[in-house]
C-alpha cells in the first residue's frame, strides 16, 4: 500500500504568532512541524509495518519547510515531495487544495493521511477539498483506522462518541491526536533522514499558472488585522478558609448563581 502523508510547517503555537502587513501568516519566527501531522506520520508507519508499501511525505511551503520534512522523515518515512514556488506564498485553502491535488495525481497513492487540522489555520477543510478534486472518499476526524485489503474503516470522533465510516481505497483520511502515540525519532533516524530523497516540484511541473495561486489568486483577502487587546487580570483573593464562599459571592454578583 502506498501512503502519502500531508505535512505542514507552522508557526510555533507556543510563541507569539502574527500576521504580516499584507495579512498573510508571518512565518519568519519559530516554525515547527504541525503537531497533528506527527500522528498522521505515525499512523502511516504503523500501516506500512502491517501491510507493506511505501510512505511518502508531501508538503507545500517555502524553503524552510524542508526542516519540517526532515523532522518527519526522521520518524521513518521513505521519501518526501516538496512543492515550492515563488508564486505560492499567501495561497488560500482553495488554491492550496488545487496544488496538493495536482501533486497527489503524480504520486499514485492508495491512501492519503493528514492531521485533522493545522495549528495555524485550524480550517479542517483540506481533506475534503482534496477528495472533492480527486473524486475519492474522505474519511475525516479518525481516532482509529483499520485497513483490510482495499477496505478502509475509521472511527470518526464526534461530540458524543464516534461514527464508523467505511470506504474503498484510494481515500483521504485525517486523524486526531487521540489515534496513537507518535514515536520519537532515534539518532539513527535523524541521521538517515538527512540522506532521504526530497523531490522538489514547481507550479510549472504541476501545470498550474502562477496567477491561480498566492496572494494574486486568493479567493479571500484580509482587509485589516489587529492584536486583540490583552485581557486584564481582575481581582484575586487568597483562600484563607472562605475562598469557595468568595467565589460564589462573585458569581452571584455577576448573576451566574
Amino acid at each position, binding site marked *: 500500500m502506498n501512503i502519502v502523508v500531508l505535512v505542514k510547517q507552522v508557526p510555533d*503555537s*507556543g510563541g*507569539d504568532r*502574527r500576521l504580516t502587513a499584507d495579512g498573510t501568516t508571518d512565518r519568519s519566527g519559530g516554525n515547527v512541524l504541525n503537531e497533528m501531522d506527527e500522528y498522521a506520520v505515525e499512523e502511516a508507519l504503523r500501516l506500512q509495518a502491517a501491510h507493506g508499501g511505501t510512505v511518502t511525505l508531501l508538503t507545500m511551503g517555502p524553503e524552510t519547510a524542508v526542516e519540517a520534512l526532515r523532522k518527519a522523515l526522521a520518524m521513518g518515512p521513505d521519501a518526501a515531495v516538496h512543492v515550492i514556488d515563488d508564486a505560492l506564498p499567501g495561497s488560500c*485553502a*482553495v488554491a492550496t487544495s488545487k496544488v496538493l491535488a495536482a501533486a497527489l495525481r503524480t504520486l499514485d497513492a492508495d491512501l492519503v493521511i493528514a492531521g485533522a*487540522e493545522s495549528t495555524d489555520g*485550524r*480550517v479542517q*477543510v*483540506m481533506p*475534503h*477539498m482534496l*477528495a*472533492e*478534486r480527486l473524486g475519492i*472518499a*474522505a*474519511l475525516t*476526524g479518525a481516532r482509529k483506522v483499520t485497513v483490510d485489503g482495499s477496505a478502509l474503516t475509521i472511527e*470518526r*470522533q*464526534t*461530540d*458524543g*462518541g*464516534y*461514527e*464508523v*465510516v*467505511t*470506504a*474503498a481505497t484510494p481515500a483521504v483520511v485525517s486523524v*486526531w491526536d*487521540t489515534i496513537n502515540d507518535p514515536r520519537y525519532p532515534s539518532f539513527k533516524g535523524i541521521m538517515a533522514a538527512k540522506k532521504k530523497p526530497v523531490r522538489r516540484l514547481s507550479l510549472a511541473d504541476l501545470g498550474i499558472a502562477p496567477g491561480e495561486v498566492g496572494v494574486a489568486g486568493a*479567493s*479571500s483577502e484580509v*482587509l485589516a*488585522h489587529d*492584536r*486583540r487587546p*490583552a*485581557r486584564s*487580570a*481582575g*481581582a*484575586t*483573593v487568597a*483562600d484563607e478558609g472562605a*475562598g*469557595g*464562599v*468568595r*467565589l*460564589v459571592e*462573585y*458569581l452571584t454578583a*455577576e448573576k*451566574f*448563581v
Partner: protein
Amino acid sequence: MAEVLVVAEASAAAGVKKVTLEMLTAARTIGSPSVVVFGDEPFADKLGEHGAERVYLAGAADIDDFLVAPKATVLADLIRRVRPAAVLLASTQEGKEIAGRLAVKLDSGLLTDAVAVAPDGTATQAVFAGQVIVTARVRRGVPLITLRPNSLTPSPAPATPVVEPLAVAVTDADRLARVTERVVERKGARPELTEASIVVSGGRGVGSADSFALVEELADLLGGAVGASRAAVDSGFYPHQFQVGQTGKTVSPQLYVALGISGAIQHRAGMQTSKTIVAVNKDPEAPIFELADFGVVGDLFKVVPQAADEIRKRA
C-alpha cells in the same frame, strides 16, 4: 433583498441548535434568510421565530448514510439556482467540511471561524488562539462563512417561513464514504460544550478521573458543561471530546471556570474569548490569573466543595 442561506445545525434528537439561531440573526443583517435543513422535520416554527423567510427541506434518504459529500452536492445545486448573497454554516467539524467542498465545487472564497458578520458580507475572525482579530472578505464566488458557536446573542424576529422540499440528486462520488454505525458513548443532561453558556473545566490539578466528580458537580450546580485541559485528557482524567484548546474545542461561553489549570497558551487558544473567566489555582503565579476576571488562590479540593455547598445554600 438578496437571499442568504443558513445551513441549519438541527436534528430530531437535539432540535434546532443555538448556533443556527445565531446564524439566522447574522444572516438578517445581510439579506433575507432562508434555512436549509437536512432531515425530515422542517422546524418551521422555531426557525420562523428567528426570521427565516423560507426553509428548504432536504430529506434524510441518501444523505444520512454518507459523510458530508451529499450535503455539499445538494447545497451546491441550490446555491447555483438561488444565487444567495452569502452562505452561513456553523464552524463545527462538519460545517467546515461541507464549506470546504462547496468552496471547491463553486470556486468560492471561504472564511472559517467567524465571530461576527457585517452587512456587506465581510467577516471578523479570531485567529492564532484569539490573539489576532482579522477582518476578511471573499474575493470570488459566493461568500461561504462558518460562524463559531456562541459568537452572538440570537434575537427573535418573527416570520412565517415557506417550506420548500428540495430534490436530492446525489452522485456516486458522494456515496464513497459510508457511515455504518453511530455510537453514543456519553450522553447526559449537560449542555454541549461549544454551545454551553457556562463551562467548568478541570486540569492536571484535579489529580484523577475520580476527582473530576468535583468539576462535574460544580458544572451541574451552575447548569454548565464540563471541559478539560489537555494535561487532564492525556492523564486519562476525562475523555478527549471535552478537551478545550488549540487541539480541542474552542468555547466562548458567558462564564468559564478553570480549576487546576495553569493557563498555557494552547489552552487559552480555546477559551480566551469567554466573556467572564474565573480561576481556582494554588499557584499565585499561574498564568491563568493574568486573564481571569476573578481568581481564588487556593487548593481546589477545599475551594470547590465549599463553593458547591454555598451554591446549594443559596438555591
